[in-house]
C-alpha cells in the first residue's frame, strides 16, 4: 500500500504531521498541503480569485529549507488572505528551492498556525522515498 502523503500524529498541545514523499519535491509539496489542511479553510470559496506567487529560498541545510518553505507559505497566506492549494517545485536541492504556489483569495482559515518548528525535524530516506515529522505551534 502506498504511504499517505501526510498523516496527523498525536501532540498534546500543538499539531504534528508525519509527511511522506517519493522524492524531495513531493515531500515538500505534501508538507505544504498538510499544513493548509490543518488550517481548516471553509470549503465555500465564493467570490475569491486565483492567486499565484513565486517562492525562491536558500538555507544552510535541507531541514532548515523545509521550515523556511513552510514559513514562507504561511506568511504569504496571511499577507494575501489566501488559501494556497497547488505547489509546483521547479528546482530543489539541499540548500535551495524555487517553486510556484497557487491558491485563492480572499480565504480565511478557522485554525491558527503560529509557526513551523524544528522539533523532531529530521528528513530521512525510507525505502523508495523520504519521510519527516513536522510540528506546528498553534
Amino acid at each position, binding site marked *: 500500500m502506498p504511504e499517505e502523503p501526510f498523516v496527523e500524529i498525536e*501532540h*498534546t*498541545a500543538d*499539531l504534528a504531521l508525519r509527511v511522506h514523499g517519493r522524492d524531495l519535491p513531493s515531500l515538500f509539496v505534501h508538507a505544504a498541503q498538510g499544513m493548509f489542511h490543518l488550517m481548516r479553510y471553509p470549503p465555500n470559496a465564493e467570490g475569491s480569485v486565483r492567486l499565484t506567487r513565486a517562492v525562491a529560498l536558500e538555507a544552510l541545510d535541507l531541514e532548515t529549507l523545509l521550515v523556511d518553505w513552510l514559513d514562507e507559505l504561511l506568511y504569504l497566506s496571511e499577507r494575501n488572505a489566501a488559501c494556497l492549494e497547488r505547489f509546483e517545485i521547479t528546482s530543489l536541492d539541499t540548500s535551495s528551492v524555487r517553486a510556484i504556489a497557487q491558491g485563492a483569495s480572499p480565504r*480565511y482559515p*478557522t485554525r*491558527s498556525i503560529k*509557526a513551523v518548528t*524544528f522539533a523532531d525535524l529530521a528528513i530521512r530516506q525510507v525505502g523508495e522515498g523520504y519521510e519527516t515529522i513536522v510540528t506546528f505551534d498553534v
Partner: protein
Amino acid sequence: MVGKQNLERKSPLIWEVPQSFRPDMRVPARVYADDDLLEAVLGDRSMEQLVNTATLPGIVRYALAMPDMHQGYGFPIGGVAATALPDGVISPGGVGYDINCGVRLLATGIEAEALTAHMPALMTALFENVASGVGASGGLRVNRNELAEVLEQGAAWAVGRGLGTQEDLLRTEEEGRMQSADASALSPRAMERGLDQIGTLGAGNHFLQVDRVSAVFDAEAAAAFGLREDEVVVWIHCGSRGLGHQVCTDAVRDMQAAVKKYGIQLPDRELVCAPFGSPEGQQYFKAMSAAANYAWANRQMIAHLVRETFRQALPAPLRDAELRMVYDVCHNIAKVEKHRVDGREIELCVHRKGATRAFGPHRPEVPAAYRAVGQPVLIPGNMGDGSFVLAGTEQAMEETFGSTCHGAGRVLSRAAARKRVRGEQLRAQLEREQIVVRAGSMSGLAEEAPVAYKDVEGVVRVVHEAGLARRVARTLPLGVIKG
C-alpha cells in the same frame, strides 16, 4: 523515553531525573507534581524534553517543570531554566513563539448578580469590539515609526495616548516595558506583521472572560489585590501576535548557524541557543524584549476596549464602574534577574515557557501596594472550571527562581478533544450553566473544551502545597469569548 523508574522522589511533590540519567545532562531535571499529575506528565514526551533542557550550556541548579507541564517543542510547556550570565545561553525555544503571552486581570467592583440580566448584551458587545480569530487584524493600525515607539515603550505607549492610566503601568510586570527592547533588532517581516494587530486577541487558547470571584482563600492578600467574593472580574489572555511569532521564527532560524559557530551540541534543534552575551544572543534578547513590549501594549489596548465596552453596553449605574487593574503577568519570556545560587547572588537569564513569575514579598519588582503579600500570580484554568489568583512566595525565590505554574496545562491533543466534544454541544452545555459563549469557530471551541485540560484545582493545589505560590482567590466564568 523517561519512565517512572528513572525518577527519584525528593519530597512528596518533587520528582527528579538525576544528572546521571544521560551523559549530556549538565544538571538534574525536576518536576513538581502529585501522583495523578505525574501520570499525565509521563503520558507524553514532556519529561524527555525537560531532560533535553538540562543539557543547555550554562544552566544552573535544575531544569525545572511545573505541575501543568506538557509536551511542547524544544522546552516542555511549564518549563523553567536559568543560565548564568554572561556565558550561559539564551534560547528562543525556551520562550516560545508567542513571546509574552500573558494574562491581565481587571476588577470591576460590580456584584455578579447585578450583571446577570446584561451578560448576553455585554458579551456580544465585547465580541464585536475586541477583534479575535485567526490572523485577526482590525486592531489599531500604526505606521512603522509608531510601531518602533510601541516596541520600545510597551504599555506606556498606549497609556501616553489616553488608553489607560499610570496605575495600570504600576500594576504590570516590568511596568509593561522591558528596557532592553530595540526595534531595530526586528526583521522587516516581523515589523510588517505588527502594523495592524495591536488590540487583537487572536485564536487558539487565547480568550477574554468575564468571571465572578467564587471563593477567597487568603483574606489579607485578596484585600491587598482589591478582590472580594462575588465581584465581577475580567481576564484577558493573549500575546504578541504575528510580530512575536516572527521574532521567534527569525531567531530559531538564525541561531541554527550560531550553534555551529559556538560548538554547542544539542539533542533537539528547537533548543537552538547562543551565549547571552554573544551578538546572536543579544540580537534575540533585544528583539524578544521588543515583542514583549508589543504584547503589553496589546493587552493595554484590549483593556481599554473592555473599559469602553462596559461604558457603552451597560446601563447606569453599572456603566460607571471603574475597571481597576489587578495585575498583568507574562508566562512566555526570558528575563535577566538576580537570584541566590549556592549562597551567592548572581545574574541569570531565566527562561519561563508556560511558567509565571511568582516573586515573594518585599521584592522591589513587586508593586508597592502588593509588596507585603507578594506578587499577584494569575492562573487561567479553562472555560468551565474557572481560574485562580495566587500570590508569590519566598520559597519560590529559593527553589524555582521565583516561578510557578501558568495554567491548567493540556492533557488531550486537539484531535482527541474534538473526538470527545462537539463545539455546539459544548456551547449549549456552558449556556445551561449560565455561561455566555461568543466564539468565532465551533471546532476551535471544542479543542479548548475543559476536558482537554488538566484539573486546574489539582495543579494549583500542588503549587500551593509545594509553597511555590499561595492560593488567594478563585473565579468562575460568567461569559467567554474565544477567537
